[in-house]
């Protein structure tokens, strides 16, 4: 501004040239692209960006540049682009929308998102305090002093780099000295308090339940510190009490072409002079409906800016202020209005008209005044955004035509201008009151309060609650009157929306895009409500407000992501043998958060080659699998068997010590939830295993039943999943391998299938479970996790002689599918009963268990439920995709009635052909029938068979 730049950007819809409108975060139009390369940030309000050496900023939404912008042609088309233009124009034919959309999306949007990874780091901090003060202006600092002196834990956050709020742009006095000297003293005192934290450059952007408030802190860091220090920090504050001292936002008066560069808020014009020593223009007309803008006129005149006129829509004039203004040679036009601004890239002249006696029509004499700037004030809107987000109810103050806080819902108080107190002395008084009260409610009081500082409280004349200029006597306005400068929404657009039936403010908002820009309508929303209210013939409170949603100002994605990026995006859980798998070149698979080896490719092998090799080894020699991820729950207590009876579908009373049993668990709706083998280790001691992904959920489920429904059962559960490392050796040579490492008798008679033994394996304390997920003789060996790697490497060394082959989850899936064993979560999806799976044999008819009653529902007994069956494709080399839809009859084209879907499908090297499991409606009655899977490129035919393709008698299992 100091070097005469007046056009900063182009408007959203019409590409009109736009300048600087405000001096803060409410800025609707001066948006810039900040920085370049991977660190660039789009759409930053220039008025809220702190200058620094080497700062790079560019205009947005213009091409080739901000002064000559091709898109500005839209201005000439604007008569054809009313509210709802896109909905009305691009509706027909509906299928063309996909084409239109591409071009519309291109034309819309402002800045450019970076395309490279962000090199900055972002942090989060969780903090708790007794009193959170939001806003570091006079009211906020007063509240912080009062609360801090009580010994309470206090946080003061302010969005600006410096504390002082509105005082930064004023030349006011406190206690007879400069107000900023009081601010400095207050900051000194606060900085000396151990329990007070000061957070400048920190915006409270969201107020949530339970006094949880989110703050965004921007930290200026040196380039050299990029990647070491966080550029932004998201503070998650849980406060016992909150003091809102968020200030107020000035609003404009609306007249024709009120968006021209050079039209700006009156207090912004004053702030640029007082705070930044920059004159907003050379010749400034001040236009107001209230006293405050008189101060702008005085400040401008004092620094030598020409102020040809002050135009006040009020017929009366404030006495003392008017005299001061006149003393500077400024013409005061009471009962006049600015009705139009002339000029393209800068205001050049305004038209002013005398209002009639009632002030209702611009019908009097008319003049034009040369100027390059219009400083405009339509009064102030308290910044009630956070109050409203907290759930507080607003009240419309008719005298000042603004919403003020009314009823609080959470533990919060508003102080100062955000509560509608628009003079400094009142703000100080309220700040000290509210700060002390908040601290007291948080449990902190202090003795005699020091005398509070005083400021002048000048007599104010009431404002005229008028937000846009009266029309000429014929009632017809000409020219664009912008309500929402960000989204180019005019008075005419809102009137049209109402005319077309969008009476509700929420609908008007979405139809016109009023208040939907980056600024969220901070300077225009109340005007929009007022226009709608008048069009409807209602008072403003009857129209209500749209919802104030977080964030108050935009928040970067980086801050929301924090440190949860890259390798730290999500935990990767590792077994004790993880390093071995890595070194063996395993390809890992995510199973929940676990990293499990999927297969171990040798050089030159494809995944298929590796899985085939691993599958063959496990059936013809010995394979080894890291099974440490299986969930393990230690169950102890005299009622443990009864507990198992209730949670599993099968009976547990007669399981002897030293034996295991497979169990299936249902939720109370009768659907399969989890499965696994449970071993009886002692009289009242069991060890349950769960699926890898289900460990946490099963424990929670069991605890919930124990604690809420069955508190009398004497059972204690302990998760021991992570305490044990487990290696499973499987195959015809597994017994011979293990026999060399333990003294335990492993013969089929001494240690039958589903036996469990405490043992010493490789000189390590171990438990051996003879259980199998492959259908081969298998031993699961568990040792304390610290010895997991020792067990694994010992087995691998000893296994060399037997051709031991590590296999991953993929081979495991193939091997179990060859046997027709299910995987819960793959072959079931929460809508499958044990009966659907053909597992009636495991569902007890003699006892009650979770889900039993649901299995007797009519729906659960329908004969056409989807049932688990096997599929053999007619072409044995064709592997069906998992998820493929199955139809009973092949029709020339869709739709074809679907009868089921493929849940598991693999190529089986052991069988030399493809196999699949599927859930098919009434599948068991269709065994032997041919069905079809219509795919994109072909239709596959397959025969339905019983699930269980390999060794269906189970001879190998018991060998």
């Amino acid at each position: 501004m100091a070097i005469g730049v007046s056009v900063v950007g182009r408007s959203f819809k019409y590409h009109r040239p736009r300048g600087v409108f405000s001096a803060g975060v409410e800025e609707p139009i001066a948006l810039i692209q900040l920085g370049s390369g991977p660190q660039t940030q789009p759409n930053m309000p220039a008025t809220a960006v702190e200058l620094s050496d080497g700062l790079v900023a560019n205009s947005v939404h213009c091409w080739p540049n901000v002064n000559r912008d091709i898109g500005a042609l839209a201005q000439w088309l604007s008569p054809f682009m009313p509210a709802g233009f896109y909905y009305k124009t691009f509706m027909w034919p509906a299928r063309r929308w996909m084409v239109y959309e591409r071009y519309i999306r291109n034309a819309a949007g402002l800045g450019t998102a970076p395309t490279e990874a962000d090199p900055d780091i972002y942090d989060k901090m969780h903090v708790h305090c007794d009193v959170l003060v939001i806003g570091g202006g006079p009211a906020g600092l007063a509240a912080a002093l009062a609360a801090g002196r009580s010994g309470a834990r206090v946080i003061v956050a302010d969005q600006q780099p410096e504390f002082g709020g509105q005082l930064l742009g004023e030349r006011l006095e406190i206690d007879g000295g400069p107000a900023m000297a009081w601010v400095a003293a207050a900051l000194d005192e606060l900085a000396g308090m151990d329990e007070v934290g000061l957070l400048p450059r920190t915006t409270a952007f969201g107020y949530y339940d339970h006094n949880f408030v989110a703050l965004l802190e921007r930290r200026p860091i040196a380039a050299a510190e990029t990647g070491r220090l966080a550029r932004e920090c998201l503070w998650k504050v849980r406060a016992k009490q909150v003091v809102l001292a968020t200030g107020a936002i000035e609003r404009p008066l609306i007249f024709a072409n009120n968006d021209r560069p050079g039209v700006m808020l009156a207090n912004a014009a004053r702030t640029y002079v007082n705070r930044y020593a920059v004159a907003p223009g050379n010749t400034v007309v001040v236009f107001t409906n209230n006293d405050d803008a008189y101060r702008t006129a005085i400040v401008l005149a004092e620094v030598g800016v020409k102020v040809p006129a002050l135009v006040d829509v009020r017929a009366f004039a404030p006495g003392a202020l008017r005299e001061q203004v006149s003393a500077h040679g400024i013409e005061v036009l009471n009962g006049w209005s600015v009705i139009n601004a002339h000029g393209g890239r800068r205001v050049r002249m305004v038209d002013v008209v005398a209002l009639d006696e009632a002030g209702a029509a611009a019908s009097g004499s008319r003049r034009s005044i040369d100027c390059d700037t219009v400083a405009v004030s339509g009064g102030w809107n308290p910044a009630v955004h956070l109050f409203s987000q907290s759930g507080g109810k607003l009240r419309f103050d008719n005298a000042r035509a603004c919403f003020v806080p009314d009823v609080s819902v959470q533990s919060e108080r508003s102080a100062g201008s955000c509560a509608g107190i628009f003079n400094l002395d009142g703000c100080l008084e309220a700040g000290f009151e509210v700060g002390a009260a908040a601290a007291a409610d948080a449990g902190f009081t202090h003795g005699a309060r020091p005398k509070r500082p005083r400021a002048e409280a000048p007599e104010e004349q009431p404002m005229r609650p008028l937000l846009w200029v009266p029309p000429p006597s014929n009632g017809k306005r000409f020219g664009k009157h912008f309500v929402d400068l960000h989204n180019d929404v005019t008075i005419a657009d809102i009137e049209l929306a109402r005319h077309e039936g969008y009476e509700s403010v929420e609908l008007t908002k979405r139809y016109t895009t009023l208040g939907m820009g980056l600024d969220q309508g901070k300077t225009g929303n109340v005007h929009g409500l007022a226009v709608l209210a008048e069009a409807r013939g209602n008072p403003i409170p009857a129209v209500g407000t749209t919802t104030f949603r977080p964030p108050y100002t935009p928040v970067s994605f980086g801050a929301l992501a924090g440190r949860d990026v890259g390798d730290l995006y999500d935990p990767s859980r590792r077994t004790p043998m993880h390093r071995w798998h890595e070194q063996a070149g395993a390809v890992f698979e995510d199973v929940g958060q676990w990293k499990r080896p999927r297969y171990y490719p040798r050089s030159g092998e494809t995944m298929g080659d590796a899985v085939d090799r691993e599958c063959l080894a496990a059936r013809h020699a010995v394979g080894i699998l890291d099974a440490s991820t299986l969930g393990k729950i230690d169950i102890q207590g005299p009622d443990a068997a009864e507990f198992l009876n209730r949670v599993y579908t099968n009976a547990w009373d007669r399981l002897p010590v030293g034996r295991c049993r497979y169990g299936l668990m249902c939720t109370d709706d009768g659907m399969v939830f989890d499965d696994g083998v449970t071993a009886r280790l002692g009289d009242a001691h069991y060890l349950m295993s769960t699926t890898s992904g289900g460990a946490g959920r099963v424990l929670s489920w069991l605890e919930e039943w124990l604690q809420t429904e069955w508190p009398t059962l004497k059972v204690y559960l302990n998760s021991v999943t992570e305490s044990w490392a487990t290696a499973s050796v499987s195959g015809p040579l597994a017994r011979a391998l293990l026999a060399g490492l333990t003294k335990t008798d492993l013969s089929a008679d001494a240690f039958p299938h589903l036996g469990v033994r405490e043992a010493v394996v490789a000189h390590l304390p171990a438990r051996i479970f003879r259980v199998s997920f492959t259908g081969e003789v298998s031993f699961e060996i568990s040792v304390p996790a610290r010895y997991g790697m020792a067990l694994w490497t010992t087995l691998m060394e000893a296994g060399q002689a037997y051709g031991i082959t590590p296999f991953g989850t993929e081979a495991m899936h193939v091997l179990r599918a060859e046997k027709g064993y299910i995987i819960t979560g793959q072959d079931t999806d929460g809508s499958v009963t044990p009966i659907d799976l053909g597992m009636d044999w495991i569902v007890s008819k003699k006892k009650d268990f979770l889900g039993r009653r649901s299995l007797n529902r009519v729906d659960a007994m329908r004969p056409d439920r989807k049932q688990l069956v096997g599929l053999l494709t007619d072409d044995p080399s064709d592997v069906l995709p998992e998820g493929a839809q199955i139809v009973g009859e092949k029709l020339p084209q869709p739709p074809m009635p679907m009868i089921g879907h493929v849940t598991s499908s693999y190529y089986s090297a052991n069988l030399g052909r493809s196999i699949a499991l599927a859930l098919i409606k009434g599948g068991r009655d269709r065994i032997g029938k041919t069905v079809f899977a219509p795919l994109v490129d072909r239709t596959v035919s397959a025969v339905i068979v019983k699930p269980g393709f390999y060794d269906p008698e189970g001879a190998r299992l018991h060998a």
Partner: protein
Amino acid sequence: MPDRYRRQSPLAHLGLVARASEDQSAEAGVVMAECPFCAQTGLRGDGSLARFGNAVKTVLGIAPPTEPNTVTGPEDFADGARILWLGPDEWLIVGGDVDAEPSGALRLALSDRHAAVVDVSDGRAVIALSGPNARDVLAKGCPLDLHPRAFGPGRCAQTVLAKAHVILHQIDASPSYEIYVHRSFADYLWSWLEDAAGEFGVRISNSRSDRNGLLGGRVTP
């Protein structure tokens, strides 16, 4: 007893022992150490019964705490057994070397009543975190109020740190903490802590009692 040199702690693969012996900045704001092979026993029982508490005290010398989120043990929790309150009927007993099988005596003492004593030593890694900025590092990922007025020495809590469930125990006011995290999450949590502590300067130590920047105490293989 199996050969101790075949055992591996949850963070063994990070080479922390070697890193600790390297030349490190003395200015570190945060000191981190793994406390390997620390015996941990899960205890379940009816805490409202005096007989239960007495039986535990007879074996361990200390009774299980009944005040929520507190720890009983020696003054500075430096050595010997300590018992962390996890729930009205659930505790974690910590202390001694895991291969000394410390839970055997307790299991025997409680065998005549409804209680569960489970060796969970291998289930969790223990990370010691101390230094002037230790609390700041925790605040980056833990929603609890760890201010001295709210959480001091002798307090424990089951909470989350970053995206891992942890048990947090404050040892002393310096402040120093012990963080118990499920073994499979240990690598993630250690990496997260080192990352979060980066701005303060991190020193790797070999000793859980190394709180004041002086290398002391035992070095465990």
